[in-house]
């Protein structure tokens, strides 16, 4: 039985997986640098109105946080459900706090 499962096959499967993972990491990394450059460019060149710049920066930041969590901190991988739950719990508590403070203290 054990002889039939060639270690070579498992190795090649793993290698394939690792290769794909590396590809994803590099693409995400490139995208994040791209986003940073875009953010920097629109502020430095003053090409846009302030009204548009702020929301665009926030959206870019949000996407980057997502990349960070899902690709670099491996939230997308199996077995990370509990850390994901914790992180979303923390995000929820933080959002509640900020929204309430903004709405009832400074509005």
């Amino acid at each position: 039985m054990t002889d039939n499962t060639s270690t070579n096959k498992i190795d090649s499967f793993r290698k394939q997986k690792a290769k794909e993972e590396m590809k994803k990491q590099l693409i995400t990394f490139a995208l994040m640098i791209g986003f940073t450059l875009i953010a920097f460019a629109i502020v430095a060149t003053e090409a846009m109105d302030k009204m548009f710049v702020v929301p665009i920066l926030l959206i870019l930041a949000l996407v980057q946080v997502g990349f960070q969590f899902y690709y670099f901190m491996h939230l997308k991988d199996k077995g990370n459900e509990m850390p994901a739950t914790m992180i979303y719990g923390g995000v929820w508590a933080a959002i509640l706090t900020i929204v309430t403070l903004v709405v009832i203290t400074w509005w």
Partner: protein
Amino acid sequence: MSIAATQKRGFGSFLWDYLTTVDHKKIAHLYLFGGGFFFLLGGLEAMFIRIQLIKPENDFLSAGLYNEMITMHGTTMIFLAAMPLLLGLMNAVMPLQIGARDVAFPFLNSLGFWLFMFGGILLNCSWFLGGAPDAGWTSYAPLSIQSPGHGVDFYVLGLQISGAGTLIGGINFLVTVVTMRAPGMTYMRMPLFTWATFITSVLILFAFPALTVGLFLLMFDRMFGSAFFDVALGGNSIIWQHLFWIFGHPEVYILILPAFGLFSDIFSTFSRKRLFGYTAMVFATMLIAFLGFMVWAHHMFTVGLGPVANSIFAIATMAIAVPTGIKIFNWLATMWGGSIEINSAMLWSLGFIPTFTIGGMTGVMLGSSVADYQYHDTYFVVAHFHYVIVGGTVFGILAGLHYWWPKMFGRILNEMMGKISFWIFFIGFHLTFFVQHFLGLMGMPRRYWVFLEDQGLDMGNLVSTIGAFFMAVGVIVFLINIIYTAVKGEKPGDDPWGGRTLEWATASPPVYYNFKQLPLVRGLDPLWIEKTEGKGKMTPAEPVGDIHMPNSSILPFMMGLGFFIAGIGFIFQVDHSAWLIAVYAGMATAIGSMLIRSLKDDHGYHIHKEELEREAD
């Protein structure tokens, strides 16, 4: 290393053992000792408060000293007594309940304890170094900004250090429950006390940062001339209240959920029945934790947030009564038809149900934002939170101590004295606080150091003080019980109660590696399953093998000591810059210890298979 436990040792090595220990069972002893000490201190302060209020216009304490007493009573009881005692029980029991050999980070466990202990000592040093904090346990700005002397500085630094310790403890428990459950111990097979520990740790993780931020802002305002809470310079003093209660409300659930958990275990054990509605109990606990983050502004109804905000928070508050009600009914249904055995642990649990339900009912009354304008800052509030915190948390701690004492120390507490202390304390508690509801409704405000004659408050306050003395006697009987048990208590064996959960499958007290072989868990109440199927002990899930153990370390103690010294330095550097030496020396000790910990590899040691096999079963 392992032989040391069996040798006869002097006091010095005993002390060194506890200073350096990373064993969760010994850290539990430390927490119980530290928390117990501060509980007695807080109790003493409570007695002074009640003696001052025994008659109208009493002059037992001066007004300033009275303010210090109420502040330190509240702060000590919440941060330095109730929470550490619960953390002690969690440390003692939770790893055993999930079938683990220790917590995930034994070193951090020890660090968490020492930070708590040094923070607590720092806070109490204020009595001897120019006066204790006197702005109430909530330390509202602008009062806390303007409070003269160093009292509030001690509050800020002391809570900052002990809060860091609690946060570390919470994270440690989270990782332990997620990663270290024995084979077969799925989430939905965990005992309720473990569930409560887990969810409480989530609350600690998310709630304490708000306190940390608030304390830092207060520290900067008081010491370094910032103006976060100073309205005159463009600050906003309401932000303190928000930050404090964003922490403070989850904090009360941090206090009550572990008690809920251990009551669930006790009811099920002494009714000889599976816990009724296990799944509902778990989800009710989660729901309480979830809602607990959305109700903090009910402490601030009279601040003037406006009718919309008040209504939202009022409704969210009342919603919490639903999961809590589910729990109460499930406990009653657990006992229904059970073969109930009433002993001291069960008495505390039975006393909890009506007491806590009264506290919950006054809670819903206070949660009505309209009625709250009448109740706010009166003795009605004082009565309410003592009914839930004493009736829930303190009864819970005492129930847990009676229940797990044989497991933790190998000796069983005396039943007779246990029952006496329960009845005296229980009667005293209701004498003290039931009458305070009516004092509050008649308009007696909290935190005032005197009241006038012939306003209908004389009799109620006298009764209340008499009740407080009963409570003190109850605690003293319990202390005598502890000493008696330590000297000549019975040794009841490993499983005196007919336990259902994994901790009762270990020795009493457990060996330092807890389980020679990790147990195989086949369902909820794993030991009970084995008992009903005639085996009576756990099936091992692994062959006997080497066990990896952590080394003891003095570094956590040194880090705590370092932050303690630095804290003293921070407090007094505003008077004279020479105190900065203490800041530098303290920080150097703490950071130096951290550096040693980071740079020096410590791989722990192994207990070898042969050594394990030699030890008798």
